[in-house]
């Protein structure tokens, strides 16, 4: 199934979609308030963007600088070309210490690599500890949002899951009670697991340290209790200097949820005494993306999720409809880089309204890149039938003035008398929309009439 078909499924439950839509927009509004409270906000975005540009242009040396400093700090560094190699490295680290159970805090990279499934096949149990991720793990689903993994779930469904797996009372759906149950259950896991895997938000070349941000404290509970800490990081997470954290940490959480900063921003410089600390630097298509001038600056992404919260398509189609670890506008740029044919539908899952670009803290030109992907995809693979047709119609209409006028008239006619026809044929996005009222006369007819 492609994105628009899955989106149609998601839209069958109208109440849920409305809730999803409104909740994400509420978070988007919190982001606006937080941003407006910082007078130098635009300057911060500008700086963050310029720092990331500099990182991409000097990535080779920054990675080497980071590696040598991290090694000096006692961190073991591994390099993985792709998902398979990343998973193999994790497995071999665990095997070397005879570990069969691991806890994990939020890492979108391990979702991208399919690590959980890989390890489970090798009889290694993985427990996700971020509450939202734990919930989707129990439901045997992938996260639907990079910051809010179970934003698509209602509390009653979570109550049912917890009743089944954690033994909470049947019908219990109070978030306070459910969170307390998860806390107790996961605490036992934190205390007994010998290995913990975390993601990486930023890695500082100058100091060889890495920073992990959470609100729950789960990355810290895992890392500080375990004998083996594995951190998985996409190679674009490098920043040159420690002082640059002062810019990124100001932007990250304000953009994500509107909080001034996450509860914990933990700086791992050296392993704890007696602890093994491993860091895996993962490529998985990133160095190829770096070679595409039109798309390379998608590598500046700091995974705040703001572009998803603001996207009218994401809000009404849900993260799962993207069928990729990173959903939403940025996911629709990153996914085709990994497999263009498989993800050819994603760059079309956008209205190109530009709201994503407008909120992005590192100023990625998201909607322009989506538009560019469309052109690439049309050139190389052809597009799904419905869109191909509407695009052809559009192209013909635009290149032929007479046709354009006719299409304008037909369009108005269809809108007025048979909206379902235009809905189904021209654009899958209109299926769930009330179409606007068609004006009685088009601007062109009005203009011609009044010109005389």
């Amino acid at each position, binding site marked *: 199934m492609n994105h628009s078909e899955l989106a149609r499924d998601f839209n069958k439950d109208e109440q849920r979609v409305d809730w999803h839509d409104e909740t994400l927009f509420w978070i988007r509004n919190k982001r606006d308030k937080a941003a407006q409270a910082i007078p130098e906000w635009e300057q911060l975005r500008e*700086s963050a963007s310029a720092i990331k540009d*500099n990182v991409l242009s000097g990535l080779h040396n920054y990675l080497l600088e980071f590696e040598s400093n991290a090694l000096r700090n006692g961190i073991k560094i591994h390099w993985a070309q792709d998902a398979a190699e990343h998973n193999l490295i994790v497995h071999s680290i665990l095997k070397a210490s005879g570990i069969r159970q691991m806890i994990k805090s939020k890492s979108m990279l391990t979702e991208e690599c399919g690590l959980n499934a890989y390890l489970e096949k090798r009889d290694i149990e993985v427990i996700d500890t971020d509450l939202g991720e734990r919930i989707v793990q129990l439901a045997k689903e992938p996260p639907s949002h990079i910051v809010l993994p179970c934003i698509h779930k209602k509390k009653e469904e979570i109550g049912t899951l917890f009743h089944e797996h954690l033994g909470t009372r049947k019908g219990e759906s109070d978030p306070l009670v459910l969170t307390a149950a998860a806390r107790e259950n996961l605490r036992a896991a934190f205390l007994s697991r010998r290995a913990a895997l975390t993601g990486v938000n930023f890695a500082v070349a100058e100091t060889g340290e890495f920073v992990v941000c959470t609100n729950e404290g789960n990355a810290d509970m895992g890392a500080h209790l375990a004998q083996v800490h594995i951190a998985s990081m996409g190679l674009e997470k490098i920043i040159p200097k420690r002082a640059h954290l002062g810019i990124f940490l100001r932007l990250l959480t304000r953009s994500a949820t509107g909080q001034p900063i996450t509860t914990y921003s933990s700086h791992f410089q050296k392993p704890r005494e007696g602890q093994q600390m491993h860091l895996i630097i993962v490529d998985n298509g990133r160095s190829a993306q770096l070679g595409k001038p039109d798309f390379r600056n998608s590598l500046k992404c700091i995974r705040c999720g703001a572009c998803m919260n603001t996207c009218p398509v994401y809000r009404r189609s849900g993260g799962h409809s993207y069928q990729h670890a990173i959903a939403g506008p940025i996911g629709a740029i990153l996914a085709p880089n990994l497999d263009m044919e498989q993800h050819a539908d994603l760059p079309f899952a956008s209205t190109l309204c530009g709201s994503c670009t407008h909120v992005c803290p590192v100023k990625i030109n998201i909607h322009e890149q989506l538009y560019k992907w469309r052109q690439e995809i049309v050139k190389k693979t052809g597009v799904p039938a419905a869109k191909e047709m509407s695009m052809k119609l559009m192209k013909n209409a635009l290149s032929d003035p007479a046709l354009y006028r006719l299409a304008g008239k037909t369009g108005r006619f269809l809108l007025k008398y048979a909206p379902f026809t235009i809905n189904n044929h021209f654009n899958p996005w209109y299926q769930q929309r009330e179409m606007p009222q068609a004006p009685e006369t088009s601007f062109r007819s009005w203009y011609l009439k009044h010109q005389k």
Partner: protein
Amino acid sequence: MKSREKILSRILEHQPESTALPFSPEIQGNETGSLQIFTEVLTKIGGHVYQPGNLNIMKDQIRGLFPGKSRKITTLSLFSDLADTGWTIQSPSELKDVEVAIIGAHFGVAENGALWITEDQMKQRVVPFICQHLVLLLEKKEILSDMKQAYSRIGDSTYGFGTFISGPSKTADIEQSLVLGAHGPKSLHVFLLD
């Protein structure tokens, strides 16, 4: 070629022409952060802020907050009459039953209510995370205005592990309802002293 070399050579081949690092903007606003803003922000995100006046008042306040015989530990000899100062452990999991931990912080940041704490102040890294309630001590004059100042204060120091803590552990993963005490402390109490 090993993966490392392959990745690095692809990057070298693909990275664009070098661009400059931005000129870092000058420090905005006051050199010292506002106590009032710090208190407001930290309170809003679920923390409690106290200005006890002197050490004895502070101790009474802590006793009032945490009566009873539950396990309390500290890394500050100042509080030996309130909490265990002599604790030593073989494994960090031995701290699982700690109810209250009392430790010091280097400085606080007004714009986000965060406090900077390093490993030497924790003794064990897990202390500020595993306790049920966390008490932090901060000198009033150690409040900076924003994160830019925070990093200029941290400079190039080495700390093994350091963290900004801003409020109690929290989650809103279930239908966006805020719950305090996700995996870390359920409450955070910051005492400001002269």
